[in-house]
């Protein structure tokens, strides 16, 4: 009976999931159609080809607004603040202004499916244009094809776009996760101040995790003498990464962001670990890098290797978390995309089942990657503060 109930629940859930995703995709398709309506004077009405990689990239990328749902062909989004440091100083406006902006005058054949995002906002005598989700100086990218702007080099080309400190979807999601974690752990912290006996309630739930981080991550890697100093950092990244991994798995507003599968985010965390490692590195650590225990003629070879090693360790942290989480999202989205590739709704139950399966796997990965990131951070810190050897 219980099993039957469970399987029914799972089925309903999978149905809901696939239906909601299908819905949003249909709406998007509709959108694209509409935009081509407005500009395509020759009005060729053929169905736009579904581009899965574009669909997936759209979903795993950061965004300036938080897309909630589509209703009657219109996107319902939570507008987020756009904060730009331009040639003429600070410019701020809400991302919703792009929605009201004018379309760039362009020949219809030049439009891509995402061109409905290409809208221009005018502020402080400057025109800003949203291309592929990024904000550019409109007049500087007028002659550049959107696809060319997608490469890594132009992402950091601050001639064509202003420095962008917008509170994006991922940043919004991060604030959400931080508030959530604060509420949990402030409660736990308070309960420890009041209750000197065995932990109760949420504290009892969290304590094994805290002790796990201490006894299975910090102490074995850093050592019983020095671990205490790094516990707050290890606990913070562990829970921070875990909760954001989990938030990324929930496929609706206000979750569904792909924060931990974002390179900029993982870069920042890895960089913080790098800073902590470097600032806490003792004589032995630096000695190992700049005076390796090899005959001195080999130093020419070893010192550069060791210096590169300093950076490859956090680099691996950055890539590992990003790749694992992004891959999970890509697989789930690919499974959903199958429905549109086969152009039949009958594939939906199959996709749905696989999505459920992958989601469970991703639940595991979410915890695992938080653990691995914390473990390796502890390991690197441990190497930096190690006394002997």
């Amino acid at each position, binding site marked *: 009976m219980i099993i039957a109930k469970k399987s029914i629940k799972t089925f309903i859930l999978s149905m809901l999931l696939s239906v909601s995703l299908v819905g949003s995709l249909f709406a998007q398709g509709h959108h694209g159609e509409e935009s081509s309506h407005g500009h395509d004077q020759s009005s060729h009405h053929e169905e736009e080809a579904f581009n899965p990689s574009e669909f997936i990239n759209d979903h795993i*990328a950061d965004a300036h607004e938080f897309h909630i749902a589509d209703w009657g062909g219109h996107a319902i989004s939570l507008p987020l603040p756009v904060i730009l440091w331009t040639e003429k100083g600070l410019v701020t406006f809400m991302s919703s202004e792009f929605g009201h902006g004018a379309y760039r005058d362009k020949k219809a054949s030049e439009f891509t499916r995402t061109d409905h995002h290409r809208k221009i906002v005018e502020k402080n005598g400057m025109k800003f244009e949203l291309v592929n989700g990024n904000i550019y100086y409109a007049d500087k990218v007028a002659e550049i094809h959107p696809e060319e702007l997608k490469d890594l080099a132009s992402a950091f080309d601050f001639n064509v776009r202003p420095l962008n*400190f917008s509170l994006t979807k*991922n*940043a919004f999601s991060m604030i959400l996760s931080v508030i959530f974690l604060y509420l949990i752990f402030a409660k736990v*912290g308070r309960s*420890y101040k009041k209750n000197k006996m065995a932990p109760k309630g949420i504290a009892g739930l969290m*304590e094994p995790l805290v002790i796990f981080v201490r006894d299975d991550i910090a102490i074995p890697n850093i050592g019983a003498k020095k671990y205490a100093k790094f516990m707050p950092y290890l*606990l*913070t990244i562990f829970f921070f990464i875990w909760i954001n991994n989990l938030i990324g798995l929930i496929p609706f507003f206000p979750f569904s962001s792909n924060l931990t599968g974002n390179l900029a985010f993982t870069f920042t965390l890895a960089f*913080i670990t790098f800073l902590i490692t470097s600032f806490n590195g003792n004589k032995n650590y630096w000695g190992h890098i700049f005076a390796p225990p090899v005959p001195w003629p080999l130093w020419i070879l070893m010192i550069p290797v060791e210096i590169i090693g300093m950076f490859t360790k956090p680099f691996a942290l950055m890539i590992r978390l990003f790749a694992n989480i992004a891959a999970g999202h890509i697989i789930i989205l690919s499974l959903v995309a199958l429905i549109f590739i086969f152009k039949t709704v009958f594939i939906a139950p199959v996709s749905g089942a696989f999505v459920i399966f992958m989601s469970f796997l991703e639940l595991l990965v979410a915890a695992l990657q938080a653990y691995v990131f914390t473990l390796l951070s502890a390991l690197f810190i441990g190497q930096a503060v190690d006394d002997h050897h």
Partner: protein
Amino acid sequence: MNLIAPESLVFWTTIIFVVFFFILKKVAWKPILTAVKNREDSINNALAAAEEARKEMANLKADNERILNEARAERDAMLKEAREMKDNMINEAKEQAQTEASKLIEQAQVAIQNEKNAAIADLKGQVAEISLEIAEKVVKSELSDDKKQLELVNSLVKDVTLN
């Protein structure tokens, strides 16, 4: 891979993470870790105390056992001693009784002998007296007439040999 405003996320992540870290360190990690540490210490102390108590208990038990054994041995020794004493006393009493008895018997014998002797002596006296009386009476009767006196004198004179 479409990077959207990476500098924005780096900026916000840094700020949010650092602020979050310091807040959580204060409101959560410090109290939690201290409380857990204290609790562990107190549990360890309690366990150590329990172990100590257990050892003490074992010692106490061993002590008790020893004392009990000693007491038992002492009791046995006392019993044995008492038994010996009893035997001794009985023997002594018997001996004493024997000697006393033999002494009494001896005394009794002596007394009997004495009594006998006295009785014999008395009897002898009485016999002598009675004999004398008889003799007196006989003599009296014998010498009641002159003739008989003469006869006697004659017989006596006959017996006497004059030398």
